């Protein structure tokens, strides 16, 4: 009898670890030319559209003629991008108000009583019924000099929002509610102690409540302190339809102060009245900021605002923001979604899925490996796309001489990295949907309807904001909130609509909505992949 030795392969058993699986999926991804081209296309399209938008910005000094054509650029010294005053936080601000001031050396305090705040709306004569806009402001302020955009803290009465304490343009905290009148006056007090400024309010001048205390870093020893009045533009918004019909008309407010008392060292002998404003802003016809003082009673009239500028074509700030450069993101997202969908559906079409699952019977792990590979590739592509769009477009727009909403660097980083994260998670979402439906057409359809269409409907003005805001809350497109260039301020009335770059959800909340949908789709995909025959 001869014994037959059975054949034994001398090859070592390969480990079937997750690393092995990742490597296998990565090999599949990088060796299909079309998918890699899709990723490169995403970068090129997003970057290219960004450059196009940057290139087409209007030089700030060009003349818009009545026919709507942008006129020739006036060359010369006058032609440079207007520098918006920047607040202490780096945001562009409006710093325009009537200031009745005296220098205050060292620590001290100022107390006043406000007995009236009235206003004039556009088109109304001096004799017409007084009316104030809700954010007309009159009160006392301690400010780091009269330079535009310098730091401050103020406590004030408003037209419709009670007593507020505000500081450094973006800070805002409420005090006593209700409007001011001779029968219901408001007492206000600001004290300075080193860098800390504390605001108090009172209804009777004896019982005081602390409204807030803020630390203004780098406040000089001598500051300007006194009374101020300002009144923002009354906006006749038709924000439901973003197109046209927005009238930002200036308004004027007048306030009466008395019982002005001060402690500390006030070296000047008399009050100085100043209308602080940006050098580029034009005078407002028919309005006369100023003050007069009769026996301790100050009547101050002012117009403007002390607040952050709000970006967007319908608002008073710069029309173009970094977010506009990234409008091409949706096209890049389509390219990435096509690659992500085919990364799964091609397995079914070619029958490769049977080989894949024979090699790695843990189906959940196959899905996880694919998600990691496509997510990482999409993140890298998205990062390159967003960085290219923002950096190139900013450069091109600067060369055009146009002004862009200046962005503090953490916001810019959040926008660029957020765009990459948005594209990466959207790719994983597409992969999960493709696993569920197993057809490219159906997967792409779902992604287009849930992510691209809500975004496309919200980007140009014209669709009622109520609808687009709802879509940007519930659909995965909510993640576009990551591109929001500036926060919405409760204390500034403006057109906070999606087409101007204001999303109904906070940036990371919007991203969480996309992540939630993606998690749901992944769970469903994992379940079906395990339960169904491949």
């Amino acid at each position, binding site marked *: 009898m001869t014994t037959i030795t059975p054949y034994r392969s001398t090859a070592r058993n390969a480990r079937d670890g997750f690393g092995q699986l990742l490597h296998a999926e990565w090999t599949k991804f990088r060796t299909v030319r079309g998918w890699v081209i899709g990723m490169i296309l995403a970068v090129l399209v997003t970057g290219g559209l960004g450059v196009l938008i940057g290139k087409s910005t209007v030089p700030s000094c060009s003349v818009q003629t009545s026919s709507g054509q942008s006129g020739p650029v006036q060359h010369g010294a006058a032609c440079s991008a207007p520098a918006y005053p920047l607040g202490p936080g780096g945001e562009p601000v409006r710093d325009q108000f009537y200031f009745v001031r005296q220098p205050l050396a060292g620590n001290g305090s100022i107390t006043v009583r406000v007995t009236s705040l009235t206003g004039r709306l556009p088109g109304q004569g001096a004799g017409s019924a007084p009316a104030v806009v809700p954010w007309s402001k009159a009160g006392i302020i301690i400010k780091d000099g009269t330079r535009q955009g310098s730091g401050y803290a103020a406590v004030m009465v408003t037209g419709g929002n009670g007593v507020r304490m505000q500081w450094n343009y973006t800070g805002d905290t409420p005090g006593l509610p209700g409007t001011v009148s001779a029968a219901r006056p408001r007492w206000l007090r600001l004290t300075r102690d080193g860098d800390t400024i504390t605001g108090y309010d009172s209804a009777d001048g004896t019982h005081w409540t602390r409204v807030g205390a803020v630390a203004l870093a780098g406040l000089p020893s001598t500051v300007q302190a006194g009374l101020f009045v300002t009144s923002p533009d009354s906006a006749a918004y038709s924000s439901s339809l973003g197109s046209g019909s927005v009238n930002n008309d200036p308004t004027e407010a007048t306030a009466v102060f008395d019982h002005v008392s001060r402690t500390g060292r006030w070296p000047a002998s008399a009050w100085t009245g100043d209308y602080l404003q940006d050098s580029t802003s034009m005078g407002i016809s028919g309005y006369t900021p100023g003050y007069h003082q009769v026996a301790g009673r100050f009547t101050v009239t002012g117009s403007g605002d002390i607040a952050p500028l709000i970006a967007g074509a319908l608002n008073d700030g710069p029309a173009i923001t970094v977010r506009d450069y990234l409008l091409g993101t949706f096209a890049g997202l*389509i390219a990435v979604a096509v690659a992500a969908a085919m990364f799964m559906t091609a397995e079914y079409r070619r029958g490769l899925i049977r080989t894949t699952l024979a090699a790695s019977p843990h189906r959940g792990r196959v899905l996880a490996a694919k998600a990691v590979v496509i997510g990482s590739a999409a993140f890298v592509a998205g990062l390159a796309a967003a960085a290219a769009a923002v950096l190139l477009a900013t450069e091109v727009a600067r060369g055009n001489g146009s002004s862009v909403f200046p962005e503090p660097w953490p916001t810019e980083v959040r926008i660029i990295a957020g765009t990459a994260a948005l594209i990466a998670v959207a790719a994983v979402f597409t992969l999960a949907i493709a696993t569920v439906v197993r057809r490219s057409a159906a997967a792409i359809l779902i992604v287009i309807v849930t992510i691209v269409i809500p975004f496309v409907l919200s980007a*140009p003005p*014209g669709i009622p904001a109520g609808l687009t805001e709802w879509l940007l809350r519930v659909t995965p497109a909510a993640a576009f909130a990551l591109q929001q260039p500036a926060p919405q301020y409760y204390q500034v009335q403006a057109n906070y609509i999606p087409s101007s770059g204001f999303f109904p959800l906070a940036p990371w909340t919007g991203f969480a909505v996309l992540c939630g949908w993606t998690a749901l789709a992944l769970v469903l995909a994992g379940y079906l992949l395990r339960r169904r025959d491949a």
Partner: protein
Amino acid sequence: MNVPAAGLTAVGPARARYGRETLHAEWTKLRTVASTGWLLAGAAALTTGVSAAVDAAAACPASGCQPDPAKLSLTGVQAGQAIVVIIAVLAVSNEYSTGMIRITLAAMPRRLAVLAAKATLITGLVVAASAVAVLACLLAGRLILPGHGFTAAHGYPPPTSPALLSLSHGPDLRAACGSVLYLGLIALLSLGVATAVRETAVAIGLVLGLLYAFPVVTSAISNQHWQRHLEQIGPMTAGLYIQATANLRSLPLTPWQGLGVLALWAAGALTIGGLVFRCRDA
């Protein structure tokens, strides 16, 4: 000898039958795929649904309505076209993904006749579904908009029109018929692109990217000279001028010229698709 003669006499009728049979074959293929019906219904439903939602979110403040009620109540076309694109792309790309194209071309060697038959049928189906959807949109507008300020007090309907969104009012009729034609042309554009690239997902991505890029990008462009030019050449932006019924003077093109731009895009895509289809191995 009878045989050659019989062969010769058969040429005439056979050629006449040829076109009809190609159409019939394509119709059988389209009709028997479950997705065609679902997608057509989906396109109509999405168009109507989005339009109704836009109507319900519209407002006409006392200061006067800016918007154009016909354009407003046909907004859903912007969403519904995505499904129309998919219907048209699938008609071609499905043949490639299943290998059916080789049988089709063996049976019908005249490739352009196959493409023409597909184009005719897809356009016909899309036009029929869009007509239903557009009528439903107008009906929704008529029912919903008066409750949102589009009333006689605000000047709606205009004096020349017998009722709000009435088909007997010239501009409204143009907007309605034009929207149907718009969707038909979108189907032709998609068919051309799909014939050229053959891959479902790629074709859908290309067409939708091309369509949506123009309105999104022009919304951010502050240079009005560029903005007008981009709107004029964009297939979606120019094509949708057909929906305008107010402020026609402010449009960069007349409504029919706008639809003509889209027709040029569709013709270009079909020409390229046809050439590639003819010259390339299937």
